[in-house]
């Protein structure tokens, strides 16, 4: 039995009919066509599906869509504004923090949450913030560099 819920995704309101077992990840990808949020393991272990719900990072594969009714969801598609990349996106591009790119959306949202709540994080704090996000390509070096650069206000 499907239920109507209201999701505010990247500032835009959507009315979606969802079944009780559907996850937020499935609704974003399959119902709303927002495929920037990736399915890496579907078990909450890799971080590729990280989105922000009411500003906080969650693994969207572990969140039931019905539980997000009325809440605000930020996905990677909403990170750039008016065609301008977010400073984190610019830094990820410039510093070579993106290889295959499959972990990138989740990584960027985890970093966004960090900087919004801790504008000047230490390297340790950066590492803690993205510890739940696995990357198999980069060895993390350039991801940490990119986040540090934004935190330190480096010209990009």
């Amino acid at each position: 039995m499907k239920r109507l819920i209201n999701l505010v995704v990247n500032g835009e309101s959507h009315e979606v009919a969802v079944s009780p077992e559907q996850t937020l990840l499935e609704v974003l990808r399959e119902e709303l066509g927002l495929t920037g949020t990736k399915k890496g393991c579907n078990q909450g272990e890799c971080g590729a599906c990280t989105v922000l719900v009411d500003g906080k990072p969650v693994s969207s594969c572990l969140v039931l869509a019905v539980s997000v009714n009325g809440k605000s969801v930020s996905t990677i598609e909403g990170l750039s504004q008016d065609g301008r990349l977010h400073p984190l996106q610019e830094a990820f591009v410039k510093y070579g923090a993106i290889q295959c790119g499959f972990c990138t959306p989740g990584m960027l949202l985890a970093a966004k949450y960090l900087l919004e709540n801790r504008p000047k994080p230490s390297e340790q704090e950066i590492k803690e913030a993205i510890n739940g996000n696995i990357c198999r390509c980069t060895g993390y070096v350039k991801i940490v560099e990119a986040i540090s650069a934004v935190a330190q206000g480096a010209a990009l």
Partner: protein
Amino acid sequence: MRLRDCKEVLEMSEFNIIGKRVPQKDAVEKSTGAAQYVTDLKLPGMLYGKILRSPYPHASILCIDTTRAKRLPGVKSVITFSDTPQIKFGPLVDDWYILAKDKVRFIGEEVAAVAAVDEDTAREAIELIRVEYEELPAVFTPGEAIQPGAPIINPEYPNNVVSHFKVERGDVEQAFREADLVIGDEFYANQVYQAYMESMACIAQSDGRGHLTLWLPSQVPSKTRMSYAKALGIQPRDIRVIRPHVGGGFGAKMEYDADLICALLATNTGRPVKIVNTRMEDFEAGNPRVPMSFDLRLAFKKDGTLLAKDLKALAGNGGRTVYGPAIMSTACYRIDSLYRIPNLRADGRLVYTNTVPTACFRGFGNAQATFALESLLDMAAHELGIEPAELRIKNSFNNGDTSPHGWFISTSGLADTIEQATQAAGWNDKKRNKTTRRGIGLACTNHVSGNRGFYRPFDGSSAILRVGESGQAVLIQGEAEIGQGQNTVYAMLAAEAAGLRYEDVTVAQVDTLIGPFGLGSFASRGTVLGGQAVIAAGKDAKRKLLAEASSMFNIPVEKLDIREGVVCRLPEQTKMATVAEVASHYMFRQGGCPLTGEGVYVPDTVVPDPVTKIGNISPVYCFATHIAEVEVDTETGQVKVLNYFASHDVGKILNPVGLEGQVEGGVVQGLGWALMEDMVTVNGKVQNPTFLDYRIPGVRDIGKIHVSFVETNDPKGPYGAKGIGEPALNPVTAAVANAIYDAVGVRIKSLPITPEKILAALEHTCML
């Protein structure tokens, strides 16, 4: 030989774009979520496929009942062996069927498949299929599988040995008799999983007239068509492969049975079908690394001169053959181009086991052998009383040497990488002033940039550079970007060679209907083979642009040049026109046909002779030295990698940011293998098929990584460059093992080096 860091290269560069820190071509679309992977694609009317996999490691299939599954509403097709073309095939050995015929050989083998309107229905239908099995005696390790009387997995190979590789040079027995030091030991490189972030996926569509389109995250988009055509009983021309963005591969994403199942379901239903592995399926039935045990002996003179190497290898193939034979033979002899050893013997066997089939993973057998050789060299250095770095320099290959197997090493930066890494690490100081429980270890590696033996019909690459009326250029080629930054380097090389602006060059996604036959991403070949073809295409485009400009302005070609998208007159460098003006002039004069540069690169590599094994498989050879600095907690056995230094002979730095990324990624993947990763398999069943139980390195598991480069400017490399993908991982496990020995005096000879193994060894040492 020149040693430069990236900054110096930039200052000295005679190039416009080569050597600059260039972000990946597709990084922006990946950063916004716009980049589409196979898993993201949805076609109108698309169905979803699921595979019923064997729960038994070895069993006869008595009967399969699909009646209930077929009756489930929403199910559009259910297939078993009898619905397939029933043709034996395989990338190297014809021991595959698309669906199991009368028996299964590993847990996860494909038995039946379903296409349905959604994934839930497909999953439910799979559960409704009844299969009656009769379990057969099974065998799980290569050691057991070669015992007389062991259960036979493939009747065509009565002793379970899939392939046997033997090679001998010089007089090994005599060298061992005359040696001052003979040292030998056993080593084990375990089975690990590539853990790319996008699991295996496929979308297939049939036009109802026998033509298939496959969307694949493939490393070998053109080559897969050859084995897939055979399996389906059609011609390669009937298969079109489109490769969208790929979420990592590391060797795994080559031929994969689910692609063929998807193709059959699409043909049966007349609708597009998508199959995506769950992460658990990917762990249990992916293409993990070939596990290998080694019995290795080395002979030395007392001054450290290497006299002989004698290697026995036993490798696990799993239940059917992917690339195991080539990987096992690589482990037997690729490493013989690292040090000058006149007397060599290798005897390797690859053995069927009732476990998941094993395949390519960054390093392709050489990574396994490097763990054994570089560990044993360290042990030998100790015995000989020779400094480990010195011992390696003493035996290293030099420019212009030919290995005993015929491999011509045009340039070798091995000794320079040893020097650069030891300097960066403060090696001598740290060796002299040892701190308790801290240690430092070094390991070297060699690798290829291409593998002439991998695909017999040809070696080389080709590219087409099409310059349109606005000066925009599209590079069309068949090699496979899988996240490593290859397209970025290709765009740089094309721009440099043609005289275009980098931002004007776009690299087309691979589509086998349009592009050349590219062999793809394996053997660290993309930069060198594909790169040479791209340069050739760029030069051809430039030649045509200059000819056009010459006739436009009535100036001899020799008096014209193109740089950064501008045609100028020499020697005064006066601007004559933009490339756009010249290219549009060409196009409109030619009935709308764009100016097109064609580039072909056929290297002078030599296929190894099947009997003598003499050959020369790569145009250039790569070298590297890694140093790990670790701290070992003797209470818990935990190892912390404090610092890691990697120096690579890359021939020529093309894109520093891409190179660093490859090395950093390779090092961390290697650290995972060295210290954490293991596919724990009990009775053929993977016990830890999730990221929670199979831990790969997270950001907090790594220390500081220092990367540096040696430029040997190899005359056969594109602008002098060599490959980087695999050498970045090869030496990591041995560097870590050697550092742990230096720290606490225990030698761990089997991977991964877990705290349990260290504690057990420490306890043993204390008792002595």
